[in-house]
């Protein structure tokens, strides 16, 4: 086939169709095994047991939901602020020093590449009744009896800040590296951490308090009890909250890149 032949009508049609044909297998795969399943599940929020908005109306005077929802938002705010406070100086150091940058990067990436499960387990080891923190404080004579740190809201906050810190540092460092560092670009770290924090499940379940549960934990609990209508409603609320926050921030230039970052 020569370049001139490529302009033949049959070829033009093929050129138009080829991109769609290449993308089609993945698009169909994701529709079948991801989008349709999630959408069907979410439909249960309005179709279970009969078509109505009663599940959503019920949330207005659902004390459990409201407590859990505010706890989830509160935890995300605290974690985002904590990660910003700890992340900004590190991002600055990463950009400003030439000599230490490789070491700093390794110390950020090492925990970043470790799974959330393993990092949450590490905090269980550190914060337990006979964990490292208590043993050290007892040995130093600062405590008489071990402190209860594990299974408290504080434990969730500390472990989540630890897990999400790299997501804050890397976008801020990227923004600072630009010739004209824009606040909006740096803010993508804040948005990313906040949205990820909203959906946290493993860490609060492992190290958090038994009564301070997150929306994700409540959803899992409801599925275990086969309350699909209620679980779907909570899922829709969680998803809508995350999307609303992203949509509100998306107009800021540079923010759109927050979710393209695939350094993990």
């Amino acid at each position: 086939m020569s370049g001139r032949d490529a302009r033949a009508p049959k070829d033009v049609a093929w050129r138009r169709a080829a991109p769609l044909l290449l993308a089609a297998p993945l698009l169909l795969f994701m529709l079948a095994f991801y989008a349709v399943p999630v959408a069907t599940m979410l439909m249960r929020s309005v179709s279970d047991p009969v078509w109505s908005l009663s599940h959503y109306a019920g949330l207005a005077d659902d004390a459990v939901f409201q407590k859990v929802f505010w706890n989830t938002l509160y935890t995300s705010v605290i974690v985002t602020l904590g990660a910003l406070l700890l992340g900004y100086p590190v991002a600055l150091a990463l950009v400003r020093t030439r000599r230490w940058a490789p070491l700093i990067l390794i110390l950020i990436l090492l925990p970043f590449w470790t799974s959330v499960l393993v990092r949450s387990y590490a905090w269980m080891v550190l914060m337990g009744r006979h964990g490292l923190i208590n043993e050290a404080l007892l040995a130093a004579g600062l405590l008489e009896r071990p402190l209860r740190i594990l299974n408290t809201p504080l434990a969730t906050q500390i472990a989540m800040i630890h897990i999400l810190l790299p997501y804050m540092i890397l976008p801020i460092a990227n923004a600072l590296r630009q010739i004209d560092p824009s606040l909006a670009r740096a803010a993508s770290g804040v948005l990313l951490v906040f949205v990820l924090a909203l959906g946290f499940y493993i860490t609060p379940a492992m190290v958090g308090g038994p009564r301070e549960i997150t929306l994700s934990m409540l959803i899992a609990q409801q599925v275990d009890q086969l309350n699909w209508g209620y679980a779907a409603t909570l899922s829709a609320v969680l998803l809508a909250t995350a999307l609303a926050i992203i949509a509100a921030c998306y107009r800021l230039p540079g923010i759109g890149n927050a979710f393209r970052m695939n350094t993990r």
Partner: protein
Amino acid sequence: MTAARFLPATVVGLILLFLAFPIVVVVVVSFSSATYLTFPPPAFDLRWYSAYFGSEDWLRPTWLSLWVAAATVVLATLLGTLAALGIARLPRALRVVAAGLILSPLIVPVIVVAIGIYYAFSRYGLVGSPIGLVLAHTCLAVPFVVTSVSASLAGMDPRLEQAALSLGATPGGTFFQVTLPLIRPGVLVGALFAFITSFDELVVALFLSGSGAVTLPRRMWDDLRFQIDPTIAAVSTLTIVLTVLLMGCAHLLRRRAERIRTA
């Protein structure tokens, strides 16, 4: 901005310690001779590693996780690379819709994805089956492949493909001899991310594993509910070593690809 210069290095050092210390503790505890978690360990011992390698209860989930991750890599890399090639050439409106669907697992809370898939798969009999895990993990892994390959494609000079075509190469030949070698680092990085995404995945596995397809993270989770035995520290250390090796490769590959692109 000049204040940044005087930012005490100790503050940054302490924050970095906070980042790395928990990982170091897990590694150190895994080599402890003590049955209980004491720090520093009384003596060096490999007993928790021999406990892991001697237990079918740990090895079976490990093999399953490796198997599921390998299958996920094949499926996600194949579908993701083809899609990335197509999406780059789609009309803008279609491209936005397709990219939106493919990248959405990055922002949809994973519990919502997990229970949605569980809801559907329980009807198809895919709960407690490795196939179900592979299908679900592929959806979670594909965004990494597509972004990685797309980045490689964006950095590629389109004239190279046009030159090959105008010199008489077939579209297939052009792909295998020109395009693929140029985007290979992006494909490899995507494959490595897909592997780790599946190998470390827990939330979907909590719902889909059932009793027939228990993955390694799922086995660790079940164990943590009842006891904190240093065997988990040994397993954790092994997974840390594996992920750090693979992610380190991905990092170096991408750095090299960026250098070639900007050279």
